[in-house]
Structures are given as structure tokens and as C-alpha cells.
């Protein structure tokens, strides 16, 4: 006995030490909520680009801000005041609200560097013939309706380089409408701003600070008066909101679930001590799970954390089995020895099921797998080695007097439902087969933890801002910034040709904002000396009605341009072009990647065929973002499905090896299979499109359900024990359904999906285990016992 006590003492000491270690680990593990955790770890080159963009691309740093709910003129004033307060703050890289301040800097950059920037600068352009052609054009321009606005530039820029540059920058001018020089939605109901954060999208604390800064600045600008309100959306807003909401939901669900489960257990055991003890394995398991994830991944995703609640549902079962099946006069240790093989097999089933997820190339899925495995194994270990030492020597539970007869009646009546069950299963299979692949969501956005209302607001603001949804990108790269710019320049001839053939409406390129050093040098070399230029200009002006000396500024500017220092990325500081440049030229791995967004792609297939056959476009990748992200998701889903099927096979093999009987195997597996099929059918009938998270939920159903059918399947020495076994399974099931049921009320689509799946699936597993259980001789022989 003393040996046992000493062993128990060691177990408790080890457990406490483990708790402290896990607690410390958990406290140091940051929580993330960005979608990228659910993106692959070792993707292809194009996928990597996509993932990088989602993680810390410029897109992920944008905050779309709207001010609404007041008179239009008040809104524009507020927009200016807010922008003025934000500009220059170290958290804010750029603020754009349509004001000329930024455009002034952009205009100055384009104007003073026009001879280095314009692709039209060639030696031919500055000969007498070239200039004469340009001057004749100028005359037409002066006569045209646009002449009034454009003529100011002519004395210094008769070859109209600035027009060529601004034409490109304007693109098809799908910018937002404005009022009083500030961006405004077309209906005048909201003023619009774009804020780019300095911090990368995945740095949630910094994003949170920036959002608070914007809110604070707005409150200051509005002062006490005014009814205007601030609305913000964008990836950063979403991640921060989602993190908060997942944490809130996880906390709320775990509190509700704990209270309900505790209530049930208290009702059953009528002992506070038994209640606390039965929650210990679950709590320890959840803590260890988070610690394990933190240790191997560095961060824990909010979704994984939300999942932690649900583990309560499964691991609390072990203690329930132990307590409920401990009869008076027989110590808990003996119960443990009796049910240990079954518990071990049940946990092994779950571990094998979740184990397949560890091999997923998506870190989010692997996190879920690791979390579940660690949690379950730890919970089982605590049940096995810690609980018995904490229990009083003579601990036992009362016969669940009210519950047991009812359950016994139900279970003995259940097999009558065999035929209907088979029929419903077949019907569900037929339904799923009829629905085919459409039951699975095909879009990456189905993984987004963002609520639908927020997605709609985001779409509305994007429409107002005229922000083009990046559809197609041509991507190229080089080891250096300048090399990447040169690579982008080499593509421009091909792209111009595509635009002429109307395969694309236009394109953008970082090299339009900052040409490569080589291109700049070539343009500088194309500019004539002052004497040459003067001679050529005099000759070109003959018989044209321009006043003498009208183009003196032109001569000066060309002379200056010949010796001006070449432009570098630093030349863009202070302009909004920098924002664009940084979004189109990004560091990837050891090199630099230039991205050239294509506008108005009508026929993606024809486009990719043309590009594939173009030697100049060799080495450039055509990226269709929407298709790429959806195909990424499909790979993801395919992988998860494959893993799930492999998991199912592994579980079946494990059970076969452990049970060593085809009949037992069938009895153990059939209820699970039926539960999974009918749950899937039910969910789709209820209008849900199944995503990866439903798949994870189904795996959990198999894990939990295997315990039920194994326990049902196990021959019991006496009817009284049989009765207790059934009761323990029923209580365990109730707790699982409660745990996941609370999740089903979450506003986060993912948590809702998992909650629904497991709550329905676990209940069905139990019902079907009862329906499909074989009649046990022990139970049949002594029906009137007790």
C-alpha cells in the first residue's frame, strides 16, 4: 500500500510541476487570428507570393476608413482634420483622402523627374523633326477643351512628357468621387480615407494600437459636437476584431459549458469533490494542449484556442467513466484496471484520427491535431495516475437510480430501430452522392473567420473607393531591387502589345514609378546638349505661331535633367507613389519580386497562352489571385479529406487489431460510420457548406463516438455494472453535446460549424451505438436484478 501511496505522491508532484510548466508556456504564447495560419507551410512559388501578400503585403496593411452620419460638408472637414492628425504619426505609413497634399508631392515628383521617368524620352524626340511634331501637337492641345488646364505645363514641357506620365498614373481613372477635394462616396453619405499602417498585417498588437490611434484622432477631430461616426474595415481591422471575438467567444463558451457540465455532474454525483476531480483531466489536457502548440509553433491560433473548450467535452468523459463505474465496496483503482483497456483503445483511436492532421502542410490544421492529441493523452494520464490518488480510499458513487432504469429500457428497446437507421443512412448517402462535390465549400473565403456583415461592409467601402480587386498579376523577380525593376521593364513591350490587342485594358508596374538605373541613364543620355537643343528648337518653331522665347523654361529643364542625380527608392519618400511602389515591389526570401497588376483581363486563357509563347515574358509568372487562392483552398481541402480518409482507415485497422473479431469490429465501426454520414447530410440539409472545420469536427465525432461503441460493445460481468456503463456513457455524451452545443451559438462561422457538427454527431454516435449494439448475455440473463 505504501508503495502505491508513494507512487501516487510522485504522480501528483509530477502533475503539479507539469501544470506550472504548461502555465508558464501558455502565458508566453501569443494568440494570432490571421488566416495565414491556415495556409500551407511549404507552398509553391505562386502560393508563397499569395501567402506573403496575405500575411504582410501592403494589402494586409490597409485600413479603409469611412466617416458617416452627418452633413457632407461636415464630413469632408472631419476627413481633413482626421488625416492631418494622423499624418506624421510613426504608426501610420500613409494617409490618403484625396487631398492635394499627397498629390502635390506626387505631382512634384513626376514633374521634376519627367525626363528620367518618361519612356518616350529617346534621342529622336529632341531633333528638329521630333520637336516640330510635338509643337504641332501642342497647338492642337491648346485649341482643345482640355487646353485650358494643360497649357500651363507647355513652356517647360513642349514634348508633353508629364501628360504621358499622368495618363499612366490615372489609368482608367476609377478613383473615388470627391467633394471639396476630399474622397466621398458617390451618394455623398460618407467621406473615405485609406490608412496604411507601418506595422505588418500580422503584428496584431501594433495593428490594434493603430486602430486605437485612428479612433482617438477621430474623437478629437469631432470634439463633443457632431453626429458623425467612424467606420473601419480592412484585413487589419478584421484580424484584430476576430482575435477579440474568438477570445470572447471561447471564453464565453467555456464558462457556459463548464457551468452546465458542472451542473450535470453535480446532479449525478451529488459531491463537490467528485465534480472538481472530474474536471481536472480536461483542464490539465487543455492547458497541456495549448502549451504543446505554443512550444512547437511559437504562436497559437485563436481557432485552436476556441477548440480548447471543446476538448472539455471529450476528456471529461474519462473521469465520468471512472467515477460512474465505481461501485460501492470496490476501489476506484480496480474500476480503472477494468476499464483501462477500453479507455486506452478509445484514446488511441482519437490519437490516430488526429495524428493524420499532424502531417498536414497547413499549420493551422497541424495545430489542431497536436492540440487534440496532447490534450487527450494528458487527460487520460491524469485520469489514470493522478485521480486515484486524490480520491478517498473507499470512494464510490451511488447507483444512478433515476437515470439507470430509463436508460436500460431505452437501450434494450433501441435495437428495434435498426431497420429505420439503415434506411436513413442509405437515404443520407444517396443525398450526399446526389449533392456531389457541392457539399464542400470551394472558396478560400469559407475559412475566413470574419462575420458576413463585416465582409459586406468591406465590399461596400471598396466599391466606394473604387479600389480595384487585384485579379491578375504578372510577377517577375531578381536578386536586387534594380534587377527586379529592369525585369519589370523588359515586360513592358509585351504588355503594350497585349493592351493594343485588347487582351488587357492596361497594366501597372513599379518601374513606371521608379525606372531601373539603366533605363534612367539611357534617358539621360538621350537628352541633347543646350546648344544642340536650341538649334533644333529654333528650326522646329519656324512658321509656327508661338511667341519668341516661349520655351525658355524647357531649355533650362533639359539642361538640369542631363546632370540630375538618378532616382532611387528614397526619392519617393513623402509621396503616395511610395505606397504604390512598396506594394508592387516586395522582398521575398533573398530576392525582390516585382508585381505588375493587369487591368481589364477579359480572357484569362488567351492571355496566358500569349504570355507563354512570348520569349520576352519568359520567367514571369501570371498569377490569377482569386483562382490561385481558391485552388490553394481546394488543395487544402483535398489534403484534409485524404488525411481524414487515411485517419479512418488507420482507426479501423487499430480497432481490428485490438478487438480481433470481425463482428466486434463491425459493431464498433458501424455506429460511427452511420453517425458521420447522417451528420453530414443533416448539416447540408440545414444549409451549411462543409469546410475543413466540419471535417475536423467529424474526426472528433469518430474519436468520441469510438469510446461509446467500444464501451457498449464490451461484455460486462454483471447487469449492475452494465447499467453503470450505460449511464456513464450517457452522462459523458451529455457533457460532450453541451460542450460543443455552446460553440454552435458562436458568431464566428468556424466555431459555429465545429460546434454543430460535433454536437449532432456525438449524439447520433451514442444513439446508433445503442441501436446497433448486440444483446449481451449478462444483461439478458438477469433482467430483474436489483
Amino acid at each position, binding site marked *: 500500500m505504501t508503495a502505491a501511496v508513494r507512487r501516487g505522491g510522485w504522480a501528483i508532484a509530477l502533475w503539479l510541476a507539469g501544470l506550472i510548466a504548461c502555465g508558464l508556456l501558455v502565458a508566453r504564447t501569443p494568440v494570432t487570428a490571421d488566416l495565414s495560419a491556415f495556409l500551407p507551410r511549404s507552398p509553391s512559388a505562386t502560393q508563397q507570393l499569395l501567402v506573403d501578400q496575405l500575411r504582410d503585403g501592403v494589402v494586409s496593411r490597409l485600413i479603409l476608413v469611412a466617416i458617416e452620419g452627418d452633413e457632407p460638408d461636415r464630413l469632408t472637414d472631419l476627413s481633413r482634420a482626421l488625416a492631418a492628425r494622423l499624418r506624421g504619426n510613426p504608426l501610420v505609413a500613409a494617409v490618403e483622402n*484625396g487631398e*492635394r497634399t499627397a498629390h502635390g508631392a506626387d505631382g512634384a515628383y513626376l514633374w521634376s523627374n519627367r525626363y528620367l521617368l518618361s519612356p518616350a524620352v529617346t534621342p529622336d524626340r529632341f531633333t528638329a523633326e521630333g520637336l516640330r511634331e510635338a509643337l504641332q501637337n501642342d*497647338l*492642337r492641345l*491648346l*485649341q*482643345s*477643351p*482640355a*487646353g*485650358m*488646364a494643360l*497649357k*500651363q505645363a*507647355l*513652356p517647360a514641357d513642349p514634348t508633353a512628357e508629364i501628360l504621358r506620365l499622368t*495618363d499612366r498614373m*490615372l489609368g*482608367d*481613372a476609377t*478613383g*473615388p*468621387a*470627391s*467633394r*471639396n*477635394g476630399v474622397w*466621398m462616396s*458617390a451618394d455623398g453619405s460618407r467621406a473615405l480615407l485609406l490608412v496604411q499602417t507601418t506595422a505588418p498585417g500580422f503584428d496584431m498588437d501594433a495593428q490594434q494600437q493603430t486602430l486605437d490611434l485612428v479612433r482617438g484622432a477621430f474623437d478629437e477631430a469631432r470634439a463633443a459636437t457632431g453626429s458623425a461616426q467612424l467606420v473601419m474595415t480592412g484585413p487589419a481591422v478584421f484580424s484584430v476584431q476576430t482575435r477579440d471575438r474568438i477570445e470572447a467567444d471561447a471564453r464565453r463558451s467555456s464558462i457556459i459549458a463548464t457551468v452546465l457540465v458542472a451542473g450535470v455532474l453535480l446532479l449525478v454525483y451529488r459531491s463537490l469533490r467528485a465534480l472538481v476531480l472530474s474536471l481536472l483531466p480536461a483542464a490539465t489536457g487543455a492547458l497541456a494542449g495549448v502549451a504543446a502548440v505554443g512550444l512547437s509553433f511559437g504562436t497559437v491560433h485563436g481557432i485552436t484556442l476556441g477548440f480548447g473548450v471543446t476538448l472539455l467535452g471529450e476528456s471529461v468523459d474519462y473521469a465520468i467513466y471512472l467515477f460512474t463505474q465505481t461501485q460501492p465496496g470496490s476501489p476506484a483503482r480496480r474500476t480503472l484496471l477494468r476499464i483501462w483497456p477500453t479507455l486506452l483503445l478509445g484514446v488511441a483511436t482519437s490519437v490516430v484520427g488526429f495524428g493524420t492532421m499532424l502531417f498536414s502542410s497547413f499549420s493551422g490544421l497541424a495545430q489542431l491535431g497536436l492540440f487534440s492529441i496532447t490534450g487527450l493523452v494528458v487527460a487520460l494520464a491524469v485520469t489514470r495516475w493522478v485521480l486515484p490518488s486524490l480520491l478517498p480510499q473507499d470512494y464510490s458513487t451511488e447507483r444512478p437510480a433515476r437515470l439507470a432504469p430509463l436508460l436500460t429500457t431505452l437501450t434494450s428497446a433501441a435495437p428495434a430501430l435498426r431497420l429505420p437507421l439503415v434506411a436513413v443512412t442509405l437515404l443520407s448517402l444517396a443525398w450526399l452522392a446526389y449533392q456531389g462535390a457541392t457539399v464542400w465549400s470551394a472558396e478560400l473565403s469559407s475559412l475566413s473567420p470574419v462575420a458576413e456583415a463585416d465582409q459586406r461592409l468591406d465590399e461596400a467601402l471598396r466599391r466606394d473607393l473604387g479600389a480595384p480587386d487585384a485579379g491578375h498579376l504578372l510577377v517577375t523577380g531578381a536578386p536586387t531591387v534594380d534587377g527586379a525593376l529592369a525585369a519589370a521593364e523588359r515586360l513592358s513591350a509585351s504588355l503594350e502589345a497585349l493592351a493594343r490587342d485588347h487582351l488587357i485594358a492596361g497594366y501597372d508596374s513599379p518601374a513606371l514609378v521608379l525606372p531601373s538605373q539603366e533605363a534612367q541613364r539611357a534617358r539621360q543620355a538621350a537628352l541633347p546638349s543646350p546648344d544642340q537643343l536650341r538649334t533644333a528648337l529654333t528650326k522646329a518653331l519656324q512658321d509656327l*505661331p*508661338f*511667341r519668341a522665347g*516661349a520655351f525658355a523654361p524647357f531649355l533650362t529643364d533639359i539642361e538640369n535633367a542631363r546632370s540630375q542625380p538618378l532616382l532611387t527608392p528614397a526619392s519617393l519618400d513623402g509621396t503616395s507613389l511610395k505606397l504604390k511602389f512598396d506594394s508592387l515591389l516586395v522582398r521575398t526570401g533573398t530576392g525582390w519580386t516585382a508585381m505588375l497588376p493587369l487591368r481589364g483581363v477579359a480572357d484569362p486563357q488567351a492571355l496566358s497562352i500569349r504570355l507563354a509563347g512570348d520569349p520576352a515574358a519568359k520567367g514571369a509568372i501570371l498569377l490569377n489571385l482569386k483562382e490561385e487562392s481558391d485552388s490553394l483552398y481546394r488543395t487544402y481541402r483535398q489534403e484534409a479529406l485524404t488525411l481524414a480518409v487515411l485517419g479512418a482507415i488507420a482507426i479501423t485497422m487499430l480497432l481490428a487489431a485490438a478487438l480481433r473479431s470481425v463482428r466486434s469490429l463491425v459493431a464498433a465501426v458501424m455506429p460511427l460510420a452511420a453517425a458521420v454520414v447522417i451528420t453530414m447530410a443533416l448539416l447540408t440539409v440545414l444549409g451549411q457548406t462543409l469546410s475543413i472545420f466540419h471535417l475536423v469536427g467529424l474526426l472528433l465525432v469518430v474519436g468520441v463516438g469510438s469510446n461509446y461503441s467500444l464501451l457498449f460493445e464490451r461484455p460486462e460481468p454483471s447487469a449492475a455494472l452494465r447499467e453503470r456503463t450505460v449511464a456513464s456513457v450517457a452522462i459523458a455524451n451529455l457533457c460532450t453535446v453541451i460542450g460543443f452545443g455552446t460553440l454552435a451559438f458562436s458568431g464566428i462561422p468556424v466555431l459555429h460549424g465545429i460546434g454543430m457538427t460535433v454536437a449532432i454527431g456525438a449524439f447520433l454516435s451514442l444513439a446508433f451505438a445503442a441501436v446497433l449494439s448486440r444483446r449481451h448475455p449478462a444483461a439478458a440473463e438477469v433482467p430483474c436484478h436489483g
Partner: protein
Amino acid sequence: MAALLLSSVATPAPAAESWGLEDLFARFAKIAASSARFTETREIGMLTAPLESSGTLTYRRPDFLEKRTLQPQLEGLRLEGDRLTLTQADGASRTLSVSAMPEIQTYVESIRATLRGDVPTIMRFYEVALEGTLQDWRMQLTPRAEEARRTVQRIVIAGRGAVIRRIEVLQADGDRSIMTIQPDPA
């Protein structure tokens, strides 16, 4: 003293008939569509001779305005809602958001808001001084926005009833354009 104040208030109003911007614009507001021919003379500082052009003007309620230059070369300016499309002789066209280009907006809204009879818009963009009679009026528009005043100093629109006869644009650099308009008989 009171009499003096009263009389000084009373004098500037046109003696014969009492009318104002609202009355004039109410007449414009009744017109659903109109078309006209124009000739335009531009005096530009950097040129030794003025530039002449001519063409047609078309307006449709509420916000469509087109100026087609036929001589000396084909050219178009079409305003539809917030979108301004400029078409050159070679067919190349450029589309802009008017509200994003204050100097162009200042010019086009003077004509469009008048044709539409839109008092709030014209008052939002310009300080308006109206003189003459309803049968022979002159409306002087001074842009309110400093940004716009850097390009367009003043626009003077003259007309008879709900018909514009002449638009004169005086630019900040001293250049000016005078457009004379003959309404189509229709």
C-alpha cells in the same frame, strides 16, 4: 437715419422688374434638352495669334453635356455625371473624374449647373453676381475655391431668358476665351 438705410437697401434692385437668380434658373430648369452651335476664340499668351474653333453643344437633363469641336479638327468633351471624357482627333480618349480635378470642374459646372437651373450647385462653386434684365442678363461667376481660382479667375455667362448666348472665361494668367452661342432652331 432709418430712411437713409432703407433707401440704400432699395436702390440696387432693378427698378423695372423684380427678378433674381432663382427666377432665371427656374426657367432653365424647365428645359429638358437643348443644342446649339458655337464659335470660340482663344487668346493665349504664348501664341502670337488667337485660336479659332467652332462646333456644337448638346445638353440633356439632368447631367449630360457634350461639346463637339468640328473645326479646325474633330474633338470632343463629354460630361456625364461625374465622368468627363475627352476625345482627341485621332480617336484617343481619356476619362476623368470631374470632382477630382477642381480646375476642370470649375469650368464645366458653370455651364452645366446653369443649364440645369441648379442654384445650390452654382452657389457652392461660385460667388454669383447677376445683372441686367431677364431678357438680357449677365452672370459673373467667381470660383470660391482658391485652388480653382489659380486657373480660372472669372467666368461671365450672358444670355436672354433661358438661352445662353455667350460664355467668357478669364484665366488667372490673363488668357481668355470667348464662346459665342447660336441656339439651334428647334
